[in-house]
C-alpha cells in the first residue's frame, strides 16, 4: 500500500492551494494528489475558451506542466477516490488500490445540478463545469445553429458567450426575473443583459424549461424545448447551468459531518480528526453573513486550501473567511461584485453613482460596507472589497466610496501606511 504524509483529493483551486502551502513549509513530507479528471490542474473558468476557440489544454493550465515534478508531488490523475476509512486513515481508489495518509484534504468541488426535466437524459443535453463537458459539446456542435442555455448565472453566461463566438444563436432561459440575480443588482444585470442582446442572445427571464423535445423521426436528437408557459423554442443543443452542488459523497462515506456542504471549523478541519476540507465542497466562514456558507468561487477555494495546507503541515493557521466575490468581462462588460448587492430591507444604506457605462454602488449596514457592485471602471473595487473584509466603520467617509477620485487616501492611514509608505517623521 502506498503511504503518503499528505493526501489531497481534487486537483483544482483548493487542492493546489493546499499543496503549495504544504510545500512552503515542508519540503520532504510525501504529498499525493488524486484527481478524477485525467488532466493536470487547469482553470475551470477557461473551459469556455476551449469551446469558443479550441484553446488547447496547455494554454488553460493554471500552473506550469512540470508543477508536480518541481514540487515533488505524486500526482494520480484519472482516478476517483471511492472509499474513505477515517479511522484507519485509508483511501480506496476506483481501481481498488489503497493509499494510507496522515493528513487528508477533501477538495472535491461541486457537481452540476441536473433538474428532473423530462428529456434531460437525451443526447445533446450537457452540463458545463469541466473540460470534458467543453470537449464533448465541441464534438457535438457540428453545424448546430441554435442552442438553449438553462440558467442565467455565471456558468450559463460563460457558456453562452462561448457558443455565440462559435456562431450559435443562443436563448437563455432564466427562472428568476433577471440574469445573474444572485451576484448582481438590477442595474448591472441590465447592463449585462443589454450587451448580450446586442450580441444576438435572446433572454427569457421568469421562465423554466419543462420538457426537452425530439422529433418523432429522430427520438435521440433534440429538436426544441418547451417552457412553463407552453412556448416552444427550437434548438438542437441544451446546456444546463443552474448551479453546482457540493460533491460530498466521499466525505459522507467516511462518516464526516455534512450539512449542505462539509462542515469545517476555522482551521478548515472537518468533524473527523486529520481530515480537512475546502472549496466548493465545504461550508466555510462568510464574513458578511457571519456564518458558514457555501461560497463556490475560486479565491475562497484557493485560500481555504492554503489555510488547510498550513494546518495539515502543523502550522496553526486560521481562515479569515471570505464572501461571494465575482468579476466578469462577458460580452465586453467589466463588472466586479461582492457581498450583498441588493439590500433585503431598509436597514441598509446605499450609495451609488452612474455616469454612462461607469457604475459604482456600495451597500452599508451598521456603518460597515457589506456589499458592492462596480461596472466599467473597476480598478479600485479591491479597496472596497478590503473594507468589507476589515469590517471598518466607514461612517466618516461613506459618501466618498463611489466618487471618481476615491482612493486609499480617503481611508484611515493605518490601512495603507504600513505597507505603502514610510512613517512620516
Amino acid at each position, binding site marked *: 500500500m502506498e503511504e503518503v504524509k499528505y493526501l489531497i483529493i481534487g486537483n483544482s483551486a483548493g487542492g493546489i492551494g493546499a499543496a503549495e502551502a504544504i510545500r*512552503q*513549509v515542508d*519540503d520532504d513530507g510525501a504529498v499525493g494528489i488524486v484527481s478524477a479528471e485525467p488532466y493536470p490542474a487547469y*482553470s475551470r*473558468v*477557461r473551459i469556455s475558451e476551449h469551446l469558443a476557440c479550441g484553446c488547447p489544454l496547455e494554454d488553460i*493550465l*493554471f*500552473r506550469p506542466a512540470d508543477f508536480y515534478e518541481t514540487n515533488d508531488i505524486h500526482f494520480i490523475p484519472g482516478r476517483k477516490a471511492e472509499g474513505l476509512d477515517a479511522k484507519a486513515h485509508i483511501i480506496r481508489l476506483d481501481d481498488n488500490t489503497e493509499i494510507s495518509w496522515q493528513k487528508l484534504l477533501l477538495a472535491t468541488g461541486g457537481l452540476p445540478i441536473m433538474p428532473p426535466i423530462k428529456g434531460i437524459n437525451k443526447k445533446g443535453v450537457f452540463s458545463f463545469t469541466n473540460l470534458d463537458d467543453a470537449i464533448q459539446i465541441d464534438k457535438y456542435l457540428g453545424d448546430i445553429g441554435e442552442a438553449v442555455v438553462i440558467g442565467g448565472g455565471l456558468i450559463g453566461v460563460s457558456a453562452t458567450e462561448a457558443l455565440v463566438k462559435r456562431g450559435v444563436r443562443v436563448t437563455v432561459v432564466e427562472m428568476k426575473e433577471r440574469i445573474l440575480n444572485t451576484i448582481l443588482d438590477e442595474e448591472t444585470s441590465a447592463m449585462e443583459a443589454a450587451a448580450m442582446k446586442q450580441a444576438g442572445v435572446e433572454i427569457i427571464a421568469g421562465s423554466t424549461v419543462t420538457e426537452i423535445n425530439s422529433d418523432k423521426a429522430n427520438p435521440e436528437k433534440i429538436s426544441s424545448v418547451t417552457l412553463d408557459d407552453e412556448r416552444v423554442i427550437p434548438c438542437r443543443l441544451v446546456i444546463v447551468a443552474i448551479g453546482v452542488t457540493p460533491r460530498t459523497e466521499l466525505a459522507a462515506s467516511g462518516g464526516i*459531518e455534512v*450539512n449542505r456542504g462539509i*462542515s469545517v*471549523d*476555522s482551521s478548515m478541519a472537518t468533524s473527523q480528526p486529520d481530515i480537512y476540507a475546502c472549496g466548493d465542497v465545504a461550508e466555510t*466562514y462568510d*464574513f458578511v453573513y*457571519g*456564518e*458558514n456558507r457555501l461560497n463556490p468561487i*475560486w*479565491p475562497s477555494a*484557493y*485560500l481555504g486550501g492554503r*489555510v488547510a495546507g*498550513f494546518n495539515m503541515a502543523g*502550522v*496553526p*493557521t*486560521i481562515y*479569515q*473567511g471570505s464572501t461571494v*466575490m*465575482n*468579476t466578469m*468581462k462577458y460580452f465586453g462588460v*467589466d463588472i*466586479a461584485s461582492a457581498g450583498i448587492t441588493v439590500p433585503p430591507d431598509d436597514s441598509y444604506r446605499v450609495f451609488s453613482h452612474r455616469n454612462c457605462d461607469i457604475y459604482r454602488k456600495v451597500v452599508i449596514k451598521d456603518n460597515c460596507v457589506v456589499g458592492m457592485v462596480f461596472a466599467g*471602471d*473597476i*480598478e*479600485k*473595487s*479591491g*479597496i472596497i*472589497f*478590503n473594507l468589507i*473584509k*476589515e469590517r471598518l466603520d466607514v461612517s466618516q467617509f461613506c459618501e466618498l466610496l463611489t466618487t471618481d*477620485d476615491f*482612493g*486609499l*487616501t480617503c481611508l484611515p492611514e493605518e490601512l*495603507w501606511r*504600513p*505597507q*505603502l*509608505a*514610510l512613517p*512620516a*517623521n
Partner: protein
Amino acid sequence: MFILKLQLFYMKSHKFEFKKLDKKGERCSNTEIGFLLPYRLESLEYFMKKIYSRDEFCIGCHLCEVYCRLQHSESGNLLKAFKKEFPHPLAAVRVEEKGNLALSVRCQHCEEPLCLYACLGGALSRNAESDMVSYNPVKCIGCWSCILACPFGAIKQDKEQKRIFKCDLCIGEAMPACVTNCPNEALVYIDSPENDSDRLCDNHNQAEKIKGGV
C-alpha cells in the same frame, strides 16, 4: 531555496466571532479568532526590496506615472509613446491626492499576495529569483479577479489588450523608473521601512548616480 520560518502574528488587533456549526447545521459555539491570515512568512534571506512612498515629500506631480508609462513603452520616446503607440503604454502606478496628502501607489509585492491566490488564469506567480509577484501577459485572460482581490487597487485594467498591467519593479534596471525619476525623492526602493537611514541614503545615491549617468 529560501529557509522559511513561520511565525504566528495577528495583523489586526480587533477580533470577530467565528461561528461553528453543530450537527443540525445550527450555530452552537462562538470562538473568538484573530483577524486576517494570521501567519507571516519570515524568510531568513528575504531581501524583497520594495518601493515605498514618502508622502510628506510628494508634491503630486505625477511624474512617476509618466516615467512608468515611458519605461513600459515600445519606443522609449516620450512623444511617440503617447501619440503613436498602439496599444497605449500604461502606468502601473497611480498618484492619489486628497487635501495636502499626495500618495504614489503601486503593487507592493505582498508576502501574502491575495491577487495571486485569486488569479483564475495562472498569470500571476511568485518569482523564484526576485521574490516579486510577477505577471505573465500570455496567461492573463483579463477576468479581473485579481483586481477585486488587491486591497490597494494596485492592478490596472489594460482595456485595449484585455488583460491586466502591474508593477514589475522595472526588472532588468538598476532602479525602478519611478524611483529614479521622482524629482523630490518621495520614492525609495529599500528592503523594509524599518531600515536604517544608511541604506536609505545608499539608495538615494544610487538613484542620483543613475540620473546623473544618463
